[in-house]
């Protein structure tokens, strides 16, 4: 391996490392900022309540909405 090749090869490694570290910092930073934003804007308040949004007065929590369609004679089936 001659000198130029050696430098080329190692600079490629360095580039990969720099890219990986760079992207980790960039995306990690974005994630941290996003979390900060979410907390500041109270995205997590009453969070669990969101899960109830699919229910309504006509299909309230506690009522099932789907049955195995039973034929009439089949109705003694549990």
């Amino acid at each position, binding site marked *: 391996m001659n000198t130029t090749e050696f430098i080329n090869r190692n600079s490629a490694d360095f580039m990969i490392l720099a890219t990986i570290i760079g992207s980790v910092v960039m995306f990690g930073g974005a994630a941290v900022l996003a979390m900060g934003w979410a907390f500041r804007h109270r995205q997590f308040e009453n969070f669990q309540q969101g*899960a109830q949004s*699919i229910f309504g007065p006509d299909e309230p929590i506690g009522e099932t909405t789907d049955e*195995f369609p039973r034929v009439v004679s089949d109705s003694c089936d549990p």
Partner: protein
Amino acid sequence: MATTTPLTQTDRERSALERREIDASCRVPVLYFATSAAFWLLVGTVLGIIASIKLHSPYFLTGSPELTFGRVRMAHLQAVGVGWSAMMVMAAAIWLMCRLSRVALIYPTLLVFAGTMWNIGMIADVVGILSGDAQSVEWLDAPSYVPPFFITGVGIVSAWTVATFRRRRELHVYVTQWYILAAVFWFPWLYTVAVLMIFWMPATGVIQPVVNWWFGHNYLGLWLTPIAVGTTYYIIPKVIGRPVHSYYLSIIGFWSLALFYSWAGMHHLIGGPIPAWLATASTVGSMMMFIPVIAVAINHHMTMLGSFQRLKYSPALRFTVFGAISYTAVSFQGSIEALKDFSEVAHFTHYTVAHAHLGMYGFFTMTMFGLFYYMVPRLTGREWASPTLIRVHFWCDAIGITIYFVSLSIGGWWQGRMLNNPNIPMPNIIEYLLRFLFARSLAGGLIGLGHLAFALLLVANLMGWGRQRSGGPTYFVEPAPNAGDVQG
């Protein structure tokens, strides 16, 4: 909104009316997408069974170029992977987005146009492949004239989804909507990049398979999976009448899936002529997938806890829960498969085929059947004609996919072990596999039988042969005074 105030009959009726109106507005476009999807499922099933038989009986239907194994196999993948799956995903996205945003469907004609684009694309795709225009790029076998149709179709659906979302009257954005919004954004990007870099402006050499597997894996991971998982997040709580166990877990599940799933895919090229760090990056991504999968699994299990007896009654729930369990199983298996040591054996074998079908069938397709059984009666105003046929459908599919998975997993594993040992000649491996391939054909036949039952039910429902839904859209609430008949 949360139902903290006591319900009055008026509230109930108003709410039921609103839901009914939304469903009625969805009727034509959603059923168009869903029945088209079901049609392509049937086409794909027939093609799949033919391809499967050909693998152990090479003289079966030989002689014509159209029915040679390679073409039938590609057409099978396109029919089920692009016809059935993508059209069903769009049907689910449209209906769920309308219901969850609490707005009536807008621009129905535009959606029908988009569906027609997709159908034309699919016809050209399957016919083109069978007549010899296939591309031999996995998941992207469609002939060169097909992608414009798909891009137009999905582009319209994506834009429509965003437009509907912006008109939402429900303040809260439910977890299912997160998944839908992300998926309709990811897929057009993913597809366009893949078509661009492989066909329109081909990248050099091995970049093509890199793009190919980034697409192939993310097609499942960022298009089908988000919407199928989103569907389970809607169907399971709705059917058992109980909110998702932990909304925090669902948010962790969503964001970790978004981050890690997109990094998987290169493990399909482990040992291949690509930079080693690429495969390693994907292995890391695959291992991290344990986080979203465990989050979703815990969440569904805890939501279901105490309601498992409902699996006996509700077809929608039974199919959906089967799908959800398969999701956990297939994802765990997928993470393990991405490990280099494991991949050294399983890579070029039927083991991968078994895994793919556990994902595409056991998880995705079963979940979508669950949605079918819940959604279609609400759209047509008809109940399913025969519970017996639903049972036939479920058991044929459940047993069929189990036989399929078990036989090909065992056969594929030993195929890999034998391929790794150069002292075992090829003929022995081929001969050894025959029994497993035969079992797979049987499983395929069983699944086909299930699909026949499903098709009968669907046709009967669309033709109006079922019992009318009574007591308003909340079918099970019989004691409550009726809000009036739903007229189909």
